[in-house]
């Protein structure tokens, strides 16, 4: 008998956070709807035409971005001009291939020297000598390890 008759929990208890976790979305929406109705009926509102007042000229006229640069005087500002003015017209489609922090050339240059410094770490003492000989900037890899060659018949 006890299993058939569910204990009735109060409305306030149902609104508490730990009770909401187990509910599915539909019951949640129902509860929210009921709450909004209660709040909505108590809300006082002015029965006036909706005339919002805005003092800014920005939404009245489509104005361009305030910083401008011409004929390459300030390249960063020219990039900004394209970005900001495009935002006004349409949503900026972020081209991920263009947005790199470091240019490709710089990356290649860094890697050139990087290969040398990391290679030094794993080289044996004998090979490290050949690294240090070329200190003027060109990094030559050490000669190949001399392994035992099987005699060919």
């Amino acid at each position, binding site marked *: 008998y006890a299993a058939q008759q569910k204990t009735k929990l109060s409305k306030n208890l149902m609104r508490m956070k730990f009770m909401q976790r187990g509910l599915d979305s539909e019951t949640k929406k129902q509860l929210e709807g009921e709450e909004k109705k209660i709040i909505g009926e108590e809300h006082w509102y002015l*029965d*006036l*035409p*909706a*005339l*919002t*007042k*805005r*003092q*800014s*000229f*920005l*939404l*009245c*006229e*489509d*104005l*361009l*971005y*305030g*910083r*401008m*640069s*011409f*004929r*390459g*005087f*300030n390249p960063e*500002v020219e990039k*900004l001009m394209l970005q*900001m003015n495009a935002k006004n017209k349409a949503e900026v489609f972020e081209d991920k291939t263009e947005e790199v922090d470091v240019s490709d050339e710089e990356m290649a240059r860094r890697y050139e020297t990087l290969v040398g410094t990391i290679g030094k770490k794993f080289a044996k003492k004998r090979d490290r000598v050949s690294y240090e000989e070329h200190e003027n900037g060109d990094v030559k890899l050490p000669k190949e390890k001399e392994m035992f060659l099987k005699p060919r018949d």
Partner: protein
Amino acid sequence: MLAPAMAEVVAVAAESLAGSRARAARTVLNQVVLPGEELLLPEQEDAEGPGGGGERPLRLNAGARSRVRVVCGPGLRRCGDRLLVTKCGRLRHKEPGSGSGGGVYWVDSQQKRYVPVKGDHVIGIVTAKSGDIFKVDVGGSEPASLSYLAFEGATKRNRPNVQVGDLIYGQFVVANKDMEPEMVCIDSCGRANGMGVIGHDGLLFKVTLGLIRKLLAPDCEIIQEVGKLYPLEIVFGMNGRIWVKAKTIQQTLILANILEACEHMTTDQRKQIFSRLAES
């Protein structure tokens, strides 16, 4: 610019004020309006039309009136359910782009004195540094405050390099008649977007507010022609201040003179000056 139209407009406006009947905003678009005029919104024209004089039909359900959300912009004020004009100028209207109801009405007026408005990008001059904030003169009734944390990449340890006398390009976050205006040099995402300290050299000068809006219009020919002259950089502040910089001092001065003078020049005079400059 307004002189030829003024005579007949004043006559018409005076007549309507004397007759104390509000005109429909729709019929007055792009015409000169004077302070004190009341304008009707499109949805109210039917009620006011033939009856005149303020008789309105009784409605059982007031909420059934079509609520078109109209925004009243600068120069207009709400008066009952009509628009009251507070500045003299031409009445403009913009249709809503993506259907968010009603559109915007505003008065295109001219003035030299700037009143801080939230969201405006302005050029300010740092006048004082007190503790954690800078006092920036923006041309309003009081200096705006700018916190040192309101720059991109600024932390308590990493303070921005701003001195007294520097030029700052920033936007207002708080600007109303009851509080001191506050400005910042980052946007809501925390990026600078070109705001911050404006570089050294260059020239700062003041023009009227209407000229700034005219120069920043998307189809402004003056800016396009100026950009073809020589490499230069311009920053426009909505508070009437323009900062220009070019390679030589002479070029900078020429640029400043052109921008100041182009307000009162006709198109032909302007084209003459530009062609003369292009030759030399």
